[in-house]
């Protein structure tokens, strides 16, 4: 009985809303209100946005969007409101409403209609309301999502209208949640109870906030609603915790793969060849700079820049590695400790070279669109694309390296040469080639790591130094000369760090990890994957 009444009431609301759709407004009205956006102060602009929204005319959508993105201008000469699209030092402008192209003008000719954060929020609301009727499902969905966040009852009629019209099940579901969140806040008690129940298991933080507010006596006088809200919230939070753990794991693995990526080249130059390679970080740095250069050279191909950069960085760092090996390192085999001194010198030179060529400032490397944003598993767990990409990339790289070392004849030669150079030579292995290629290979891999790291951190002359200490730590922790050890070492450190961080804080967490490494090595004096038996001695 009760249910039917609610249903009917709902239907009525929807119908009423549908009928209330305003008639198209006159073009003049729209234009005036758009002009008003160019108010003197932010308060005036806010009013203008509200006025524009009130017209509920989809034609205003591009204007508002442009305003939010800072692309709305007043052409100084004509006082026209235009949308500008940046085109090399000048702007291509379009009429704000008609979209008519008005040519290309210099930046000086335009005055930007500036916004601040508060206005941006207001704009998002307005865009949301307008976008609910947009033709694009994704836009509707994200508009509805935004509504959950800003949950404002004034939007309810528009939302209902949209819900009624919605064909896509998923979008409708999001709209339903938004509607429930809004309804839960006030109105008829039975409708509120139903709305609260409907929110169970919705992991969206905003929804939980709504529930949280409702479960507090200070905010909600009605005990029954409070009880239900508390209960719903508890159930939702429980599943949230599970996803929280998954998130921590993801963070750990992703930190682990960054460590691994940074260390893996070193696992070859240091782990396999025994060169205490202080210039390893600089090889990473070269890779990162290569990415930068590629983006500068092909500004139109940002989306592919990383794909181009990976092989190029491999070649650049690899070539530098080969040159270093042939000119310096090769004189030092049999004197492994001296490699520390020489490579330290090399690292200073490379750093300064980069400083001289690219300036000491950090360089900006752009993240391609496909790597930005996050994969929303659900509201409680979203995995950022750049991290996902790096995890996958790292593992592919790892498998390739492992396969090369283990199964290719190059890997065999490499291991033979580094274990006993003279004897390898006596077996007919071209030791000088193998040495150069091995060092070049390790350096090249470091270069590839640099491409990936350029997506996470500064690209500057100090990039290498940031990673060198950690890299050595990882290689040694895992057990020198063992790629799988390095992998497991990196993952262990990554996950341990992330598990620890929430309760110890980042600083103490890092200290604890270091202490852990020290103590661990006491237990296993040759790292995690130590070689045992006689073979280890010679």
């Amino acid at each position, binding site marked *: 009985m009760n249910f039917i009444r609610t249903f009917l009431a709902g239907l009525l609301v929807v119908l009423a809303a549908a009928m209330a759709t305003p008639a198209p407004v006159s073009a003049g009205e729209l234009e005036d209100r758009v002009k008003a956006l160019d108010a003197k102060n932010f308060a005036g602009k806010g009013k203008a946005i509200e006025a524009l929204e009130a017209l509920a005319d989809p034609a205003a959508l591009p204007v508002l969007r442009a305003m939010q993105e800072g692309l709305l201008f007043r052409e100084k000469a004509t006082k026209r409101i235009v949308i500008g699209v940046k085109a090399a030092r000048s702007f291509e402008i379009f009429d704000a409403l008609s979209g008519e192209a008005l040519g290309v003008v210099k930046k000086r000719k335009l005055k930007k209609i500036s916004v601040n*954060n508060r206005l941006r929020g207001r704009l998002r609301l307005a865009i949301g309301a307008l976008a609910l009727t947009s033709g694009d499902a994704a836009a509707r969905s994200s508009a509805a999502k935004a509504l959950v966040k800003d949950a404002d009852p004034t939007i309810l009629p528009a939302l209902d209208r949209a819900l009624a019209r919605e064909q896509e099940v998923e979008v409708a579901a999001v709209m339903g949640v938004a509607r429930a969140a809004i309804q839960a806040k006030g109105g008829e008690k039975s409708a509120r109870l139903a709305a609260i129940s409907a929110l169970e298991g919705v992991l969206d933080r905003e929804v939980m906030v709504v529930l949280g507010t409702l479960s507090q006596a200070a905010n909600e006088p009605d005990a029954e609603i409070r009880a239900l809200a508390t209960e719903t919230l508890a159930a939702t939070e429980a599943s949230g915790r599970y996803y929280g753990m998954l*998130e921590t794991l993801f963070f750990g693995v992703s930190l682990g793969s960054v460590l691994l990526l940074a260390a893996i080249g070193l696992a070859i130059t240091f782990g396999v060849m025994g060169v205490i390679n202080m210039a390893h970080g600089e090889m990473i740095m070269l890779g990162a700079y290569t990415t930068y250069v590629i983006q500068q050279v092909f500004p139109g191909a940002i989306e592919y820049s990383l794909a181009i950069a990976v092989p190029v960085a491999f070649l650049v760092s690899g070539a530098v590695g080969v040159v270093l090996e042939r000119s310096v390192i090769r004189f030092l085999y049999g004197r492994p400790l001296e490699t520390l001194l020489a490579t330290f010198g090399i690292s200073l030179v490379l750093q300064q070279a980069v400083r001289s060529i690219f300036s000491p*400032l950090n360089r900006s490397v752009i993240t391609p669109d496909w790597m930005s944003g996050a994969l929303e598993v659900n509201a409680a767990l979203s995995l950022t694309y750049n991290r996902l990409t790096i995890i996958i990339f790292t593992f592919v790289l790892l498998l390739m390296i492992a396969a090369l070392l283990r199964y290719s004849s190059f890997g065999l030669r490499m291991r033979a040469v580094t274990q006993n150079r003279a004897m390898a030579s006596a077996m007919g292995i071209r030791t000088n080639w193998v040495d150069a290629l091995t060092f070049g290979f390790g350096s090249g891999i470091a270069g590839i790591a640099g491409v990936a790291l350029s997506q*996470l951190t500064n690209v500057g002359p100090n990039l290498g130094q940031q990673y060198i200490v950690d890299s050595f730590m990882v290689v040694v922790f895992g057990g020198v000369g063992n790629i799988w050890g390095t992998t497991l070492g990196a993952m262990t450190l990554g996950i341990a760090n992330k598990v620890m961080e929430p309760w110890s804080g980042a600083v103490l967490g890092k200290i604890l990890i270091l202490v852990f490494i020290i103590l661990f090595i006491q237990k296993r004096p040759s790292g995690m994957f130590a070689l045992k038996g006689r073979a280890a001695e010679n």
Partner: protein
Amino acid sequence: ADTIKVGVLHSLSGTMAISETTLKDTVLMLVEEQNKKGGVLGKKLEAVVVDPASDWPLFAEKARELLEVHKVDVVFGNWTSVSRKSVLPVIEELNGLLFYPVQYEGEESSKNVFYTGAAPNQQAIPAVDYLMDQGIQRWVLAGTDYVYPRTTNKILESYLKTKGVAAEDIMINYTPFGHSDWQTIVSDIKSFGAAGKKTAVVSTINGDANVPFYKELGNQGIKAEDIPVVAFSVGEEELSGIDTAPLVGHLAAWNYFMSADAEVNEDFIAKWHAFIKDEKRVTNDPMEAHYIGFNMWVKAVEKSGTTDVDTVRSAMYGITYPNLTGGVAVMNTNHHLTKPVLIGEIQSDGQFETVWQTPGGVIGDAWTDFLPDSARIVADWTAPITCGNFNIDTGKCSGQNY
């Protein structure tokens, strides 16, 4: 001597080269400009550049070298507080003159140093005021674990509490230098900010850690409209190394933005571009600080007719010079400047759009009023006090080395 020597003590290598090299170039440019105008007191200026290599004790050694070996008349230099602390005894002992151009934690006023960067009350407090005005109720104070963030956050925490912010609405987080994995912290900020109240992050994160921090913010989808971040150490130069597209709307508080709409500023930028031969280079707040400091020094030297440190120092008090943002800066007797405070939002082109500005200048306060012990101390280098840390309770100066 037939030239007047200007020491430049900025790291050109090591971790700080990123920031300090620009300042070295700025001083060189200012010297060149001045020489074009005929120098000072009819003598040419000669810049003496050394590289303290981001090594703090080396700063002291180089400062001594500048003063004792090269006999410079003034030094422009330092970025980090610790490097300043390191040269301080040397400068004081040899009665040199140092212009320090970077925003810092305060709690210092040396006879021989002029602080042309912002004190906490010229950056942090106005920024928080602005955000409160924007309706922010919950605060994340995120910083690198060292003195400047610690002090600033301490000041802010007590300031926020006096403004009625509850303890549970403040989250404080410290990270090590060069922290690069921000996943957990950004995710924490996200949850902290999802509690219904409008939240902002006040960032005193230093140096290289900023880039990964902002990248993570962008990737986890935290937009400035949701949780704005206001930073005190991120300027145009830092932004030039970041893809700013995802950062639009985040804030910074400085005394200068490159985008400032003023004739002098455009002039300055044009000269900078000409000097550095790169149209893409940006200008930033510490550069303005050197610009002001340098010109004030020139004015003071001309006024006193000598480069003698004590004379020039007395001449400095009350000297004014136009800011690049319009208005004038004044050198106060506590060795700090009066300057306007600007709040800007990051734009997609890596520039800041000023969204708020103090109506007039703010007097730099060497000793903050928001910490009990330092509230009792004032700095005034003119009679009758004549010291950098006068305790108003005991009526005595303490901690002077001379």
